[in-house]
């Protein structure tokens, strides 16, 4: 549940994070994407399926169509392709994962939570934050909405100037719509989430250049 890039990603498509394409609205929540389709023999272990799911999610969000990872240290090669044309979520990624290997227990377990933690700690991670940019994290689990209604304009976007009490989004949890305030001042430089996206506790939502 993060947008941090994984090691040596070669993103062969341009990024676009503004709005979700219409064709994807009906797709299953990325949090419960099914087993990675098209995986070849030998089967990657379960923990690798999770990595794949996360990668596919990152690709979906970033509209990335192809991704290759060659992590020699982990003995891991991954090659993913997303559906050509306009099918949205329909394309089957191709996974090649020879010699997949269990990661260290001391090493980060969860690609998501780890990335979160590292970025929160301000560590100099791969794809880490630029200087003078802070993250706004989700204070709760739920479904994020960028606007007060489907027809309304988003509360904020790239370039929006934030005051402490600026409403930046709504997170729905148990049918309750919770207005989330900025609690910091500055200007939004990147929106890390999409409208209607499930978010977990502590997940980065916006990048802000503080005033």
């Amino acid at each position, binding site marked *: *549940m993060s947008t941090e890039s994984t090691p040596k990603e070669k993103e062969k498509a341009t990024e676009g994070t503004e709005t979700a394409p219409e064709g994807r609205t009906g797709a*299953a*929540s990325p*949090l*419960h994407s099914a087993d990675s389709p098209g995986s070849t023999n030998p089967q990657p272990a*379960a*923990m690798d*399926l*999770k990595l794949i*799911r996360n990668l596919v999610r990152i690709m979906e969000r970033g509209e990335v169509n192809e991704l290759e990872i060659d992590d020699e240290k982990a003995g891991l090669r991954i090659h993913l392709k997303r559906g050509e044309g306009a099918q949205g979520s329909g394309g089957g990624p191709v996974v090649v994962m020879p010699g997949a290997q269990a990661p260290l*227990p*001391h090493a*980060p*377990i*969860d690609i*998501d*939570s*780890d990335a*979160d*933690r590292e970025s929160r700690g301000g560590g100099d991670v791969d794809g880490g934050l630029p200087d003078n940019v802070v993250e706004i994290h989700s204070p*709760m*689990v*739920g*479904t994020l909405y960028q606007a007060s209604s489907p027809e309304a304009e988003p509360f904020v976007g790239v370039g929006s100037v934030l005051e402490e009490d600026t409403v930046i989004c709504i997170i*729905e*949890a*148990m049918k*309750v719509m919770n207005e989330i305030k900025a609690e910091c001042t500055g200007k939004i430089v990147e929106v890390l989430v999409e409208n209607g996206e*499930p*978010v*977990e*506790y*502590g*997940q980065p939502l916006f990048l802000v250049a503080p005033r």
Partner: protein
Amino acid sequence: MFRRVLIANRGEIAQRIIRACRELGIETVAVYSEADADALYLRQADETICIGGAASADSYLNIPAIIAAAEIADVEAIHPGYGFLAENAHFAEVCRSCKIEFIGPDADTIAAVGNKARAREIAMGAKVPVVPGSDGAVHDESSAAKIAQEIGYPIMIKASSGGGGRGMRVASNEPSLLTGMRAAQAEAKAAFGDDAVYFEKFVERGRHIEVQILGDRSGNIIHLGERDCSVQRRHQKLIEEAPSPSLTPRLRDKIGGAAVRMAKASNYHNAGTVEFLLDTEGNFYFIEVNARIQVEHSVTELVTGVDLIQEQFRIAAGEDLRFRQKDIQVRGHAIECRINAEDPARNFQPSPGMINAFVPPGGPGVRVDSHCYSGYRIPPNYDSMIGKLMVHRNTRDEAIRTLLRALDEFVIEGPKTTVPLQRDILEHSDFRTGDHDTGFVERYFGSHPPAVTSREVG
């Protein structure tokens, strides 16, 4: 069967539930607090969702966060494990109102058996013996002696508004009854502003016997034999075993039948435990119902071959029980030691932090359920149990021998643990002969005196 479930717990039991789901082919969503982000068992889940900060109130007890996670993850059911929200009737209600199956009995059942007075009424209605006592408060000294005579000495005098041992006295004859009653009344008045007291039979050298039951939604209920949990320290179980060394086959059937009657009278379905106190004459008295899976469920799994967590899912999904009472056979003997990160030498104070080395024992007859590993940091926020070491052998004596060698093998470097204490207990002659009761640990190993009663044993 469910396609996808959420596990609203952490540690050993979260891992146990994930294991059951993987074997059943159910997808798992594990929620976790920030303190557990590194836990290895999260890797075995199909999806993980951080639901809040380290404090239990912010995460594992945070009903809105858990329900929100269940909704965004689109699960069909929630398994609460034990502790946290496992016996929270409100949570069970919320789950069902959100059309999420709660893996456990109905909220009404949880509420009913969770109320001591109500549970006692149900038990009496089902002809399940309860600890004999006065019918409400005893006010005047003249009737006190008569009531005590009927109940039979020794008598426990308890404050009606009491708790925590205050306003409690044990009387073994009429003079001490009257003295004790006055003292208890004065103490109760001072402590609770209410001098009402009631009488209860004091069960001496009682053993904690609990019966595992399983019930389906069609009303079929069976029991899976008993567990003996008499090795306790301050009502915390340390060692559990099945079968109990102090039950005869006849008594076993009788107590099992009582547990089934209690469950039926409570409209119970899913897995549960009916707890009893057994006296030295073979009388048993209902204590309470635990409307959840328990830590020590695994010893029953070992002797019956039934995977209780898997059965919980089957029952919650609407399947009928796959066993009848006659299919349940108890084979061999199983014993469990709870491995806690506590320092027995320092009044069992918790000992969290980095586990530098963790090498669990293995080999024949050994089962280890633990979420720990070399390099795991025990968070200070939760209970101190870091694993369960279990053995299953043909006889009790063989089980003890295997358990001793397994405890000797267990390497846990870093925190202090209960391993040395467990070893001492297993070598004690009273344990070896099975002649121990709930006061055993405090009598021989406690720095504190044994509790006055075992009624509140949890």
